[in-house]
């Protein structure tokens, strides 16, 4: 379910590192909690973000949720497809439903994130 090569946050974001950059999205658990997603507010390309700063907003029919930057970096690209098809976050949260591409500022920050196995254990704790 949760790809081994990703890192995860307690706020249910994932980050997939590709060289100096990384894709960021929300996890399958998060999309399931939110329900039908209808709107994603995206940041401006070029915006500098500190770790934990809001990078976007995800709206489902019933609720609103901030998405936070798992690490510091500059917004290199946003997933333009979400403007028309926000439900990609429901259908393919770990793939086509990515939200932003970040140019990572300091890879050491990745050390503070969870691996897939740790995230799965974290989820078990939430559901217990």
């Amino acid at each position, binding site marked *: 379910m949760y790809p081994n090569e990703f890192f995860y946050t307690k706020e249910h974001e994932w980050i997939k590192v590709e060289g100096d950059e990384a894709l960021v999205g929300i996890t399958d658990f998060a999309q399931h909690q939110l*329900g*039908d997603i*209808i*709107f994603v507010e995206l940041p401006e390309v070029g915006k500098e973000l500190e770790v934990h700063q809001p990078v976007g*907003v995800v*709206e*489902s*029919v*019933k609720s*609103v949720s901030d998405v936070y930057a798992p690490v510091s970096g500059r917004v290199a690209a946003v997933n333009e497809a979400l403007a028309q098809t926000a439900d990609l976050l429901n259908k393919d949260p770990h793939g086509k439903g990515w939200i932003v591409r970040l140019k990572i500022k300091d890879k050491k920050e990745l050390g503070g994130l969870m691996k897939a196995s740790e995230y799965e254990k974290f989820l078990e704790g939430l559901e217990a």
Partner: protein
Amino acid sequence: MKRTRFNELHKKLGAKMVEFVGWEMPIEYKGIIEEHMAVRTKAGLFDVSHMGEVLVSGKDALAYVQWLTPNDVARLASGQVQYTALMTPESTFVDDMLVYCIEKPGTYLLVVNAANVGKDYAWIAGHTKGFDVKVENLSDAYSQVALQGPLAERILQPLTDVDLAGMKSFWWARGKVAGIDCLISRTGYTGEDGFEVYTTDPNPGSVWTSIIEKGSPLGLLPIGLGARDTLRLEAKLMLYGNDISDKTTVLEADLKWIVKLQKGDFLGKPVIEKQLAEGLRRKLAGFEMIDRGIARPHYPAFVNGQKVSEVSSGTFSPLLKKAIGLVYLPIGATAPGTEFEVGIRDKTFRAMVVLTPFYKRADKK
């Protein structure tokens, strides 16, 4: 947390359960949009057993319910149902509710909101001075399901001995559903045709399961509280605590149609007459977002840059595929076409007053 008698059935169907006013209730099963559209195009089944039931009986039952409410209860024959309010002397809402005329003039069943059962019962039991009535809170005994959608009659008819084709909107009848004694009314909270089914049977599970079994091949889905809210908002049906409260008057809520001044005295009437004479300062209006954003309850509303109120209800309409909502606006800003702004996070987004309801079914009887 309280549980309805259908609780285990919801969990078996894979419902996502949440706490709602002290009850563990299904918020969604398959997803709000899919459930919403099932009700608009086929049918949906809701567990609404958390609703409250208060029975008023006795020699003065009719006179007493007349005193508590603005609508004209005397117009109801035995077998009819009426939407009305439980009103304060200020003509604000203790609650909104349905009145079932069980037997004129001695027995009326009041169906009230789950969140307000305790308060409503205390109110109803507390104003009986001078009236020969008995007030009973039967909420714990009752289970209730709502079957809503264009296929509702077709699904329910084979399961009951009540002639549903002969039942008009806002009438009720007693009969069996899946062998269980029930009260069935042609009412609902979705804007669709449909029925609400009440029973005091301690084991009502087969009412739920028989409707699911009969309806599923036709596209019926179980529906959670999430879609219940989007459905009722499209039909501009009030949600207590959001759109109406003890701070909003019946006229401000644009519910003049439930006020029948000629029926005689009732709680709140002098304030209603005063507001009619002086005019309203604000009124509940429906709106659509012009800019791309979704207005939610409590988001600020601005007219000419001044904050005037907060959004009372707001969501994404699965049917209309746009953001809709309700808000109290100064009376001068309530004409359809009037633009105003809604604050969403740190920006303001344009919205426009529109005619309501947002959705009205084509075949409305």
